[in-house]
């Protein structure tokens, strides 16, 4: 179950978005996050919404996956909406009920800001739904490559990320095993007051930590035995290829940006 929390994000499918270079996807999302702030009227927000839904359609990810990803943040979006609705006191008065007064500007701001929030979440979930974690790692490593010049350990960081990703399921399985072993010895993980339940985590965490350190040590020895000695002189097996579609996607975003600038007030 916990497995799905992290890995269930990626939905394999054959789509343009899936086949895009992770670098172009990362750049695209980064730029999108910036241009969202350009929108300030109905037309510009409309354009962004159309663009986002167009991207979702391209990604061929079933809507229910996007919805499950959105569920936890939806509450926050609605909260933002109400916050603006009740607290902004500008423009014409629209509605009054007891102590609640809603103003025109409040409604406008509320809708715009929660929409902005909503679109950002949608776009970033397209990234995680169509890109495997390891592709994201590769993309980041390649994009951050210039930082090597200022002695920033890009390769080490990427390797750390990929090893963590590789060990998550292994450690999950181990947690499950330890949990069962401790349950068999009478530890109760599921009932009792919160304080007791937090205490019950300790006999779970300690063996997990001990074995993780042991794993780390053995892994380090195995890596050294296989000739690992840092990023220098290393070749790469997984390769990224920037294609026409990547350039096209970025060009499309540039066009959207241009129109946004023209339409904003």
């Amino acid at each position, binding site marked *: 179950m916990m497995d799905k929390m992290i890995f269930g994000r990626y939905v394999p499918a054959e789509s343009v978005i899936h086949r895009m270079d992770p670098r172009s996807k990362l750049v695209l999302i980064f730029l999108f996050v910036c241009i969202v702030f350009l929108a300030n009227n109905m037309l510009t927000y409309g354009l962004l919404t159309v663009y986002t839904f167009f991207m979702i359609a391209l990604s061929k990810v079933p809507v229910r996956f996007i919805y499950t990803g959105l569920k936890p943040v939806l509450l926050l979006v609605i909260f933002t909406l109400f916050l603006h609705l009740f607290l902004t006191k500008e423009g014409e008065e629209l509605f009054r009920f007891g102590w609640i007064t809603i103003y025109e500007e409040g409604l406008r701001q509320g809708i715009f800001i929660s929409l902005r929030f909503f679109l950002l979440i949608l776009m970033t979930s397209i990234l995680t739904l169509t890109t495997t974690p390891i592709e994201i790692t590769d993309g980041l490593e390649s994009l951050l490559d210039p930082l090597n010049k200022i002695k920033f350990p890009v390769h080490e960081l990427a390797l750390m990320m990929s090893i963590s990703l*590789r060990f998550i*399921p292994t450690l999950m399985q181990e947690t499950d095993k330890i949990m069962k072993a401790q349950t068999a010895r009478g530890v109760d993980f599921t009932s009792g007051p919160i304080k007791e339940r937090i205490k019950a985590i300790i006999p779970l965490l300690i063996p997990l930590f001990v074995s993780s350190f042991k794993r780390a040590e053995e892994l380090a*020895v*195995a890596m050294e035995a*296989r*000739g*690992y000695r840092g990023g220098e002189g290393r*070749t790469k*097996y997984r390769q990224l290829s920037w294609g026409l579609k990547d350039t096209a996607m970025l060009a499309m975003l540039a066009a959207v940006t241009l129109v946004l600038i023209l339409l904003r007030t």
Partner: protein
Amino acid sequence: MNEPLVELKNVSFKYDAEAGYALHKVSFTIFKGEWLAIVGHNGSGKSTLAKLLNGLHFPLEGCITVGGIQLSEDTVWETRKKIGMVFQNPDNQFVGTTVRDDVAFGLENHGIERDDMVQRVTHSLEKVKMAQFLNQEPHHLSGGQKQRVAIAGVIALRPDIIILDESTSMLDPRGREEVLETVRELKQDYNMTVISITHDLEEAAKADRIVVMNKGQLYREGTPEEIFQMDEELVNLGLDIPFPVKLSKMLREKGLPLSRHYLSEEELVEELWTSHSKM
């Protein structure tokens, strides 16, 4: 067969200056193309020996030569290319997120060109019969399969020597047989030298030669037949004699005219079912 490949001369090693010797004055030779089993009880120094051979530690005294090169901190990367190692825990030596990435890891480390790398990855995975698992993630594989991937990672680098450091001890019998069978085939195909470190004498029985370690010292060295003559002595060293050897010995004590010690079950069965017709 008689060309020496690895030579140990008076090798001593301590993990800690104050601690006792993990290895004390060990000398022996490993010949090209042989399957050498190093056996011993826990703490006999057999795993330390493996780590010294691969330059993960360096001897305190004495010297080790691998293929004519003396092992030292300057030559360790050179000799490491000649020696591939498969460790005990299948999980803790799997570096890549998928099977192919893991096999490629060693190649990446040695700066092999990508085209060559792709070819070597597929080839070595075919060799260990794991080609259909190319994109599989490690947590979906069995222990034996993970060990076979580790072996593929080793042979992709085309080493002369493969060291199995208790590689089968965490596997179930089927996984163990899979792994050993794979190594046997590879040894033949590539004329590799195999050093298998184990406490399982049944596995050691199939080796060409056995080195018995005890308390950091070389106790005895010889062919499996010679070593199993020691029987009581082996038990005293904390090693368990393989079942067919034990059985044939007991049968002989009962007065059955068995001609010699049998090292494998097949040999013993063969002798037993034909023995009646001879009588």
